């Protein structure tokens, strides 16, 4: 559950930025002849509503209705006692605390005479909320708005970039706490990294560990004693004010291996900083491989819908793996160098 710093700061996320984002969505709605756009939010699907309002739920769920004109309406099952807190992080919408958020939104749609309304990720919408909406607004045609929203989210604005960079700073700070010569236990390492991220204002911090890279490069959640092998990796997934990044670092205990890891880290930093707009990431990686290295896996994740980070392309499913000018992704890469695995992840901006 979300329990880190959750607050809005006008200097970080000005209201005119939120207004511009809503204008962008309304322009897309106009092109598609939509009377409204509905986005669902909960703990794991917060990003669309965060992008449009600044609000992220720490618990429960809700629906945001952006009508063609007028203020958006956010209906949530969160208790009305926390309406003031919601308003403190969401300055742009009316707030309705109700046990039936779907019915509240449906009632609004019916009252506004809406006929055609898009829902972000319509098929994934909880069935209970969907039933409430159509129960209150049976004449409304609901269509999927995911593609239109993803188009809107292909580029990030300067406010979002600054928040991502702050989240990245927290992730890097968290991983810098790990001294492979000093830390022997995965649970302690995870606790140390998480504490640093949270002490510096992380809204969320998920620390995952591959405790023995030579045996298994899959990352697990660790909360207790587990020995760290000679080569291990930590992944810090960190949110700051609704913007998420991942950073993964590989660690080695002996000095020679540390030098090899440092060289690969430097390579990755160069490669991830040189992602050019319109250039396929997979091809870019393949062309830049360090000597003797094999690219075993890669993945690009972007906040294109309700998920904070969603795989948009990978070695397994290439998809559209270029970023537009102003695009953002988290790039995760796995290499094999001389039979030894190396893992890395970092945000990239095109």
């Amino acid at each position, binding site marked *: 559950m979300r329990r880190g710093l959750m607050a809005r700061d006008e200097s970080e996320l000005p209201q005119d930025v939120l207004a511009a984002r809503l204008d962008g969505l309304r322009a897309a709605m106009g092109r598609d002849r939509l009377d409204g756009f509905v986005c669902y939010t909960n703990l794991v699907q917060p990003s669309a509503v965060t992008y449009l309002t600044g609000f992220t739920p720490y618990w429960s769920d809700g629906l945001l209705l952006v009508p063609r004109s007028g203020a958006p309406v956010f209906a949530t099952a969160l208790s009305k006692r926390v309406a003031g807190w919601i308003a403190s992080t969401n300055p742009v919408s009316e707030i309705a605390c109700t046990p039936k958020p779907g019915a509240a939104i449906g009632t609004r749609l019916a009252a506004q005479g809406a006929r055609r309304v898009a829902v972000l990720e319509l098929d994934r919408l909880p069935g209970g909320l969907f039933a409430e909406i159509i129960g209150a607004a049976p004449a409304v045609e609901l269509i999927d708005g995911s593609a239109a929203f993803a188009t809107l989210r292909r580029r990030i604005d300067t406010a979002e970039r600054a928040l991502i960079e702050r989240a990245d700073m927290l992730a890097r700070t968290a991983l810098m706490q790990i001294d492979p010569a000093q830390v022997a236990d995965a*649970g302690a390492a995870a606790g140390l990294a998480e504490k640093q991220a949270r002490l510096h204002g992380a809204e969320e911090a998920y620390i995952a560990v591959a405790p023995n890279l030579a045996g298994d490069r899959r990352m697990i959640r660790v909360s207790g004693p587990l020995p760290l092998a000679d080569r291990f990796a930590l992944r810090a997934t960190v949110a700051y004010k609704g913007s998420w990044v991942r950073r993964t670092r590989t660690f080695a205990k002996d000095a020679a291996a540390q030098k090899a890891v440092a060289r690969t880290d430097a390579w990755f930093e160069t490669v991830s900083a040189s992602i050019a707009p319109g250039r396929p990431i997979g091809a870019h990686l393949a062309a830049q491989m360090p000597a003797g290295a094999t690219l075993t896996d890669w993945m690009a994740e972007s906040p294109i819908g309700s998920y904070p980070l969603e795989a948009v392309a990978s070695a397994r499913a290439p998809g559209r793996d270029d970023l537009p000018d102003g695009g953002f992704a988290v790039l995760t890469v796995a290499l094999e160098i001389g039979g030894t695995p190396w893992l890395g992840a970092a945000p990239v901006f095109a």
Partner: protein
Amino acid sequence: MPTPLAEARSARLLEAVAAAGLDLLLVYGNAWQNDYLRYVCDFGILEGQALALLHADGHVILYLDSPLEVDRAEVECAGIEIVHAPDLVGEVDRALDRFRNQRVGSAPHRLIPRKIAARREGLSDATALIDRLLMAKLVCEVDAIRRAARLADEGYAVFRAAARPGRADYELIAEVEAFYRAHGVDDNFQIIGVGGPEVRGMAPPGGKRLKRGDLVTTELTPCVDGYYAQICRTLVVGAPSAEQVAAFALYRTAMEAGITAVRAGITAADIARAENEVFRAHGLGDYVTDAYTRVRGHGVGLFADSKPHILEGVTTRIDAGMTLIVHPNTYHPIVGYLVLGDVVVATEQGCEVLTATPRELFSVSP
């Protein structure tokens, strides 16, 4: 190998599924509402969403849309078939096509994705079936909650030690989380309130810095092996005022009245009424209404806020083995929002209190 806890749950669930005449059970889970999924496949999902299909013969297929969670589930969930399904809803919908003539139950029905919930053939609401299992705990489940309760006590001690003037609210929680990650707690639900009469409830930390005279309330809910236990306590920065001491005494009386009421055979309403009567007797009846408070306690287990809710309108029968937190948390018109709560397990004769932190209004030195 599955843990003994998971095996015990699985055996009980398969019995219930057979008794209900179901061929398949479809459950949904995410990091917020994970109890139904945990009951079926013992996976604590963090990112993305999951659907799991339990066959009547015990075979489980866990569908995950996050590739990172697939990696983790493959390591953590022995004996479960894991499927990476980037198109989670489409993949499971197609899987259900293969069972058109089977009786399929789903839970929690309200969270089943729309496209799947819209299937007309044979998808029934099995939420109540699992709800009954979630509420009436096995002995091994109560043991897990007992372990979580101990860590709730220890976590609160870390919280108290971290509280001092000038520190930000989120820094206190950071200290607790670091302790928990090193001590077997992989999740924690925690909200906080800092201040005086202006504080109407608890919320996530907003960056407030502690100062002398502040009441610092928290609801701390560590998760051990999937099971949550909760503790609610209030501390004062500096010496408490006479008003704060008097208000706390009232909340303590109310909580103890609620705990005294707990035993097998009563209803959730009886517990709420016992707590609320104390407030009403002191002229504070308005403050036990939903204008000021949400619930007077709730179940704990595989969800941090599970059924039954302790409210005067809830007639759910309390059975031996149910685990509850009794917390008369509400706004006090003179001192502000105040909390106090302990986890109990109901028995035939009464209840056993699982948390051991003293029921004090703690004071931390400036």
